[in-house]
């Protein structure tokens, strides 16, 4: 067993990574909760957002955290348009079609990135990449702390939108009862596209928080999307609180797991949890019983 001086930093590392996982999972769970589709293009969209942040920094010298004001609207617009003019149209109103369309979209985006940006792994170097902040006996990298609070703030904004605005109410109405929502005059197609847009906007924010301490290459999204799916299942499909708690939990399990079992085997804990949840609590931690 490791002593506290090792476990504590590892725990904090896990929490900070988990916050970003949670943000990615929030987008995924929103799209699932409203549209009842599993968005396979989520990882590819995150990858595109990371490239966006990378090139904003490289060509315009824009700080990754400043890029949020560009990336969030840009990803929202991309998501809205993608749903309105590609996914929604190609699905012909059937959920299983959407599944395939998003999978196809993921493949196209990944290969497009491979063609445009090559397979190189790219990183950005900022003045604060290696700045650390002592928290008790632990030294935590500043970008991770920013990511933790940034992800928390983004999640807060998202929850406020869902709870208090007309759009939020409309989204929740569509999620619960599509036909009923249409009957009371909600433009369902517009709400669907808005949800998809907001889901991707979360990725735009996540990318800005992620890149200062991470890297980007055309397949970077795959690792995240697998984890995000686990979080969504763990927390309960469509549950925001579930995504938040699940994200933090998975982050900690991964961090402490890799401390014990090594970097390669450490992720096994995530998938053990995934299997255990499917077996014993298929509706997830915060999910309503089906």
């Amino acid at each position, binding site marked *: 067993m*490791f*002593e506290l*001086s*090792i476990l504590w*930093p*590892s725990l904090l*590392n896990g929490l900070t*990574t988990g916050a970003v996982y949670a943000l990615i999972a929030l987008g995924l769970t929103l799209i699932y909760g409203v549209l009842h589709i599993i968005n396979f293009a989520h990882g590819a969209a995150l990858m595109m957002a990371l490239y966006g942040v990378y090139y904003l920094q490289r060509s315009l010298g824009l700080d990754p955290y400043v890029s949020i004001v560009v990336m969030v609207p840009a990803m929202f617009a991309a998501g809205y348009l993608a749903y309105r003019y590609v996914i929604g149209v190609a699905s012909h109103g059937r959920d299983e079609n959407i599944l395939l369309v998003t999978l196809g979209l993921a493949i196209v985006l990944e290969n497009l990135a491979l063609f445009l940006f*090559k*397979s*190189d*792994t790219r*990183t950005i170097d900022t003045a604060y990449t*290696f700045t*650390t902040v002592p928290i008790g006996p632990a*030294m935590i*990298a500043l970008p991770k702390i920013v990511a933790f609070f940034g992800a928390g703030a983004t999640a807060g904004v998202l929850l406020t939108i869902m709870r208090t605005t007309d759009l939020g109410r409309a989204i929740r109405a569509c999620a619960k009862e599509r036909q009923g929502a249409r009957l009371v005059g909600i433009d369902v197609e517009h709400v669907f596209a808005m949800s998809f847009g907001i889901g991707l906007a979360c990725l735009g924010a996540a990318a800005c928080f992620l890149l200062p*301490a*991470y*890297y980007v290459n055309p397949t970077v999204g795959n690792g995240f999307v697998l984890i995000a799916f686990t979080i969504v299942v763990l927390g309960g499909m469509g549950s925001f609180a579930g995504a938040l708690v699940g994200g933090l939990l998975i982050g900690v399990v991964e*961090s402490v797991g*890799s*401390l014990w079992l*090594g*970097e*390669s085997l*450490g992720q096994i804990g995530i998938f053990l949890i995934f299997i255990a949840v499917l077996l014993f609590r298929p509706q997830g931690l915060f999910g309503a019983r089906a």
Partner: protein
Amino acid sequence: MNTTNRRQFLINTTALAATAALPLGVRAQGQAIKVGVLHPVTGFLAYSGNLSRLGAQMAIDDINKAGGIKSLGGAKLEAVLGDAQSKPEIGAAEVEKMNEAGVSAIVGAYASAICLATTQAAAKYNIPHVVDVGVADQIVERGLANTFRFAPGYKVCADTAMNHLVLLNNLAGKPAKTVVIVHEESLFGTGTANLLSQQLPHLGFEVKEVIKHANPTRDFNNIVLRVKAVNPDIVIPANYYNEYALFVRTMKQQNVVPKAIYSVLGGAASSYKFVREFSDAANGVLDVNHWFNPKDKRAWALKKRVDAMKDQFFTYEVYLNYSAVHLLADAIERAKSTKRDDIVNALAGSTWDKHFMPYGPTKFVNGQNQGAQPLMMQVLKNDIKVVLPKTYAETQPSFPWKG
């Protein structure tokens, strides 16, 4: 618009056919000699791959400027560039393409795993393959007659490193007893780690832990925490540049200061780029690695040219590839032929000494240059100095490091 009419087409194709029909020997006179320059210029090894390519191209330019291959009427060398994309199977596929392109020889392919694949693919066509870096000993242990390695393999490097480590420790009164090895997961890191963890216990060091990591790894916090838990006297990293830099910097961040960070072929400890970019983390680091003879003026002259380029550094990738191309050119010169078999024979009998590496004249046994050896360097006052062996040393080593 430029259109090709039937007559023009006939003229062109007839000329082409006539050229093709000429015997090889006649064509070779004064014509370009194609040399495959194969490196991982994209993917996770892109940084090293590009430096390797730079070194090879500088050598080709120098040779051509100096009049090409004189025994072939001043024939120029022409680089056929290949990108292994940091993957062995793509490296092998590039060899197939180079064979189609009619290369006389190949220089490359930086990483051990890629070299294993490319030398084997080149062996099918008996294309002479000069291995530039690839330190895995299997590369020259499979009886491939086409494969030649100018630089030392990792058995030699690891043995030298262990001897020097014992020497260093004894001189300081044996302050170091425990070791942690951190290595990357491919052939180079794993092989080095296995060898060290077998041998070090016989030399009086206890290997407390061997930690493996993936390529790329963007967060070394957990690994550094494990190192911290063990608190070893010596930390031995065996990985490539990006991971090495990140690992050493994270150690610095987490206040882990061992008596020595001692690398065998560590990707960054003998890198001017690393010293310039992260001098705070670099100082004191020891490394047994490929290095030029610091007493040879030609090495410093080449360094000056590389330093003058924007964002380029004089690393072993550069000068080992520079040397490998010159070694090949010497063989072609003596073979007086662009035929692959003739060049293979010329390389096998090579006694080339016009280089600036601390190897002496070349002598190949089973494709390995027998005189090849690494040197031991230490980063001192933001500069890299050779500290062992005595013959090449520029200054005294500083051990144990005081942080």
